[in-house]
C-alpha cells in the first residue's frame, strides 16, 4: 500500500486518538493511564473539527476554552471529528505545547521546554532529547488508546457517546485529578 493510502486508511484512528486525549484531559486529569507516569496531557485553546457530510465541513474553535464549549460538543454530536488540536503536555516542570494533526500525527508549532545548552551541539543534544521525551509522552498515550480501542470498542464508544451527550448539556466537568495531584 502506498504511503498516502496508508495515511488515509489510518485517518479515523488518528481522529479517535485525538478524541480520546480530549476525553481523558477532561475526565482523567490528562493522565496516560500508565503506572508511575506523572505526566498530564491537556487540550489547549485550539480545536479544528471536520466532517465530510452536512452543510458545514470545518469548524475552528480558538481562544478561551474550546474543549469544554457547547459548540464543540454540538459539532461532535453531529458527527464532526477533530482534525487538529493544540495540546499541552506537562511532566514535572517541563512543558510541551504543539498542534497534533490527526491524519499524520505530525507535531506542528512545537514549543519545547527550554534548553540549557550553550554551544550548538549541546543545544542540539538537549533539543533532540526533549523531542524524544515529548514524543514518548504521546506514544504512551497512543498505546493506551490502541488497547482500549481494540480491547473493548463498544465500551469505548458508549463512554465517548455519554461524554458527548453530557458535554452538549454542559454537564462535563473535570472529574479526575491531575496525575501529579494524586
Amino acid at each position, binding site marked *: 500500500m502506498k504511503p498516502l493510502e496508508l495515511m488515509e486508511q489510518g485517518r479515523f484512528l488518528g481522529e479517535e486518538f485525538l478524541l480520546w486525549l480530549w476525553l481523558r484531559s477532561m475526565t482523567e486529569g490528562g493522565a496516560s493511564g500508565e503506572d508511575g507516569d506523572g505526566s498530564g496531557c491537556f487540550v489547549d485553546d485550539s480545536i479544528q473539527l471536520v466532517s465530510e457530510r452536512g452543510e458545514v465541513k470545518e469548524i475552528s474553535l480558538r481562544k478561551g476554552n474550546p474543549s469544554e464549549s457547547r459548540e464543540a460538543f454540538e459539532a461532535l454530536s453531529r458527527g464532526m471529528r477533530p482534525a487538529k488540536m493544540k495540546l499541552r503536555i506537562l511532566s514535572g516542570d517541563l512543558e510541551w505545547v504543539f498542534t497534533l494533526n490527526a491524519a499524520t500525527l505530525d507535531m506542528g508549532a512545537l514549543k519545547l521546554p527550554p534548553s540549557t545548552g550553550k554551544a550548538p551541539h549541546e543545544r542540539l543534544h538537549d533539543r*533532540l532529547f526533549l523531542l524524544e521525551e515529548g514524543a514518548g509522552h504521546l506514544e504512551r498515550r497512543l498505546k493506551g488508546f490502541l488497547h482500549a480501542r481494540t480491547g473493548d470498542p463498544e465500551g469505548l464508544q458508549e463512554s465517548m457517546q455519554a461524554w458527548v451527550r453530557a458535554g452538549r448539556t454542559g454537564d462535563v466537568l473535570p472529574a479526575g485529578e491531575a496525575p501529579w495531584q494524586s
Partner: protein
Amino acid sequence: MSILQGTVSLKRFLVLGPVPDEKDLQAGLEEDQFRPFQDGLEEERLGWCDWRNPLITPPDENWVSQERFAVFSLRIDTRRVPTTLLKAHVDLRLQSLQKEKDLAFIGKEARISLADEVKVELLRKVLPTPRVVEVAWDLKGGILWTTASSSKAQGALTSLFIKSFGCEIHPLAPLVLSGRLCPELPVEGLMALDPLDLELEEA
C-alpha cells in the same frame, strides 16, 4: 523554524533498509551534496548541506554524527524569472531583431530559442531562494525527524534519501506508528476496525 531553536514543526518517518556505516553515510552526503546553480535553464537545485550552516557543503563529518543521530540538512534552492519580465525582455529582443534583419515575421522555433537565450541571461541575475530542511536520523531507532512540512519538500527528501543511502522512508502516520508501538496488534486488524460512531440521534 529549526530543530536548534524556537518553535518547530516536525514530521517523523520510519526508515527501512540497512543502516549505512559512517563511511557510507558520509559518501552519500558528499555524492549528493548541494551544488550551486551553473549557467543553464535549471530552476531548482537540491542537495545535502551542514546543519549548522547551509553554505557548508558537503556536511562536515565531525558534526554529522551526534551520539546515535546523524544530523544534516537538505537545501533546496529555486530561482525564477518573473513571467511578465521575461515576456517584456523577449518582446523587445524580437522587435530589435526584426528591425535589424528587416524581417516581417520570426518563426516559432527561432522565437523559442530566443526566449531561452533571454531566460538564461536573466537567470544569471536572479538570486536563488534557499529553503533548508533539517534532518535528524536516529540510526539505532530507525526513525527520521525532519522539519520538511510541505509535501514538495517531503517528496524531495524521500527521493534523495533513497538515492544517497539506499533506504526508503515512510511517514509515521497513525497505522504505521500503531504497528510499531503495539506489534501484538496486527495492522490489518486495526484497518478492519469500524470507526466509532459518536453521532447522537437527538442532535
